[in-house]
């Protein structure tokens, strides 16, 4: 099947800055696809390459198999929900929603009727006469959504769609967007820096780092089986273990990740250490454990050179993060603990040579 969106070794350079560098990507039709990454990782530029507001310096962007190299944004069958919503302040909500139909020459009566339908779809019936300035942030976002959907785009792009909403509203909108996407069957591509948003909404995620795609996969792929140190750390703050430590903990000589929630406190286990810090998270407590008796291999290196091992022991300086679920007794800071995990929890990262 032809992918809805395809990147073929696409680069976008701004002078010497490689905002997007040789990205290959394929987004299947009907997918709810997330582009996840920190700011400056190139995810927004990729979105703008699809909508046409950026042009590739090299490579090709295809939409349903058609090269977009000479198609301006107004002719792409793609619509965008902008981060700041970009509603037209001088038009009523109804005219905002009908705008896409108006510029394509749909008769007034037909387009206004259709706009009302779209407003009903996003549960804003009766708001058509208001001006955008008279709406709340959540309502404005729904208008932006209705306006982008009215032309029945083949692909809907959403730029940090929930970024400006407060937590409660954001969670409600997550569910709503998800069910809307399932109902309409349109391909959704959204950009976010919030990993929990990506994990909960998307069925596929591309993790961006420094202009490149670090990994593409399902949310559980990304979370359980990160391909690189960056992905392991950025998505869910996993413990990243350098090869020496992996060996010391009973694995092969390779970079590995170990989820904090996969580690248990036991009486007799694989590693002992001292609790150096605790952070209460509500649903659990995140402990930092300093390996008390480190295996010889993470001490100073045999050749006398500096060791970089401690830096990769979890996200903090030199400890291993452990998530203690609520209900389990939390040891005090300074206490000695023993840690254990299922051998399968130690995930070897294929993307790190």
């Amino acid at each position: 099947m032809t992918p809805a969106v395809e990147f073929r070794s696409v680069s976008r350079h701004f002078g010497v800055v490689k905002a997007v560098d040789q990205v290959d990507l394929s987004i299947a039709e009907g997918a709810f696809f997330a582009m996840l990454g920190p700011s400056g990782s190139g995810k927004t530029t990729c979105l703008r390459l699809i909508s046409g507001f950026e042009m590739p310096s090299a490579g090709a962007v295809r939409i349903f198999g058609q090269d977009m190299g000479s198609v301006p944004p107004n002719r792409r069958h793609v619509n965008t929900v902008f981060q700041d919503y970009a509603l037209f302040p001088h038009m009523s909500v109804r005219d905002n929603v009908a705008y896409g139909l108006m510029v394509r020459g749909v008769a007034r009566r037909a387009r206004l009727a259709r706009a009302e339908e779209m407003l009903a779809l996003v549960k804003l019936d009766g708001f058509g006469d208001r001006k955008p300035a008279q709406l709340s942030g959540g309502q404005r976002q729904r208008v932006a959504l209705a306006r982008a959907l009215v032309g029945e785009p083949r692909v809907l792009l959403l730029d940090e769609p929930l970024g400006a909403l407060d937590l409660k509203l954001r969670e409600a909108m997550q569910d709503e967007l998800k069910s809307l996407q399932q109902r309409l069957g349109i391909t959704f591509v959204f950009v976010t820096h919030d990993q929990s948003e990506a994990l909960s909404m998307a069925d596929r995620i591309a993790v961006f780092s420094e202009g490149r795609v670090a990994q593409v996969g399902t949310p559980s792929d990304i979370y359980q089986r990160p391909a690189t140190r960056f992905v392991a750390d950025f998505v869910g703050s996993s413990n990243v273990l350098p090869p020496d430590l992996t060996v010391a903990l009973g694995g092969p000589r390779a970079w590995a990740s170990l989820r904090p929630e996969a580690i248990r406190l036991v009486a007799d286990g694989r590693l002992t250490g001292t609790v150096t810090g605790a952070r209460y998270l509500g649903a659990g407590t995140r402990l930092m454990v300093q390996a008390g008796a480190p295996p010889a291999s993470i001490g100073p290196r045999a050749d006398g050179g500096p060791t970089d091992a401690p830096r990769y022991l979890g996200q903090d300086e030199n400890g291993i993060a452990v998530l203690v679920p609520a209900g389990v007794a939390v040891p005090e800071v300074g206490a000695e603990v023993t840690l254990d995990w299922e051998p399968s929890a130690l995930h070897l990262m294929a993307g790190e040579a």
Partner: protein
Amino acid sequence: MRSDGRPPLALTLAAVGGLLFLHLPIVLIFLYAFTTEERSYQFPPPGLTAKWFAVAWNRADIWPPLYLSLRVAAISSAMALVLGTLCAAAMARARFFGRDTVSLLVVLPIALPGIITGMSLRSAFAIGEIPFSTFTIVLGHATFCIVIVYNNAVARFRRLGASMLEASADLGANAFQTFAHVILPNLGSALLAGGMLAFALSFDEVIVTTFTAGQQSTLPIWMLNELVRPRQRPVTNVVAIVVVMATFLPILAAYYLTRGAEETAGGGK
């Protein structure tokens, strides 16, 4: 910058005094238009009369300069409107090489003294052997009016932001539809304000005009002649009142058109 502290009395007095200093002389003009004293500027006026309005109305030499001034102001502000808006649109679109030079070029005609603009045009007409006409006056006026429109438009473009234009294109509008449906409605009041201010500026201009008018007389030039060689002083007062009103109204309108926006019209005369 706001403070809840009460301003010191001296500051309040100085500020109010400054405003009064700016306004009292203009108020005085209104008084003098009713004086019965014809030959001098005697204060207080020995008596009051309204006859000068009728005298001014019947003076045939006032009307042609008024018409010329109106025509020049209309043409100049229309040209400035087009040129200033185009320039503002280009500046809002992109950072390009030579941006600073363009912005300097636009401000230069009002940053440099009017006599330079006037003398430059006069030199060019002399070299090119161009005869004086309405067109030569417009040439000068449109040049210094561009910046007025430009300042108003550029501020509004900045407020409009890039994402609104992108949203329009994203929804299928081509460049011309975006201009008609998004840019123009949002820019409209700023352009109207800029156009009216440009009109007021042109209507009132005298320095550049004296270099580019030759033997023609605009209303300000007529007034200037009356100031240098007074004939009926109260008639000049009446014309002055008319000129004050003709410039006040566009300014007030421009102020209300751009009120509430971050920019307000006229800051850059």
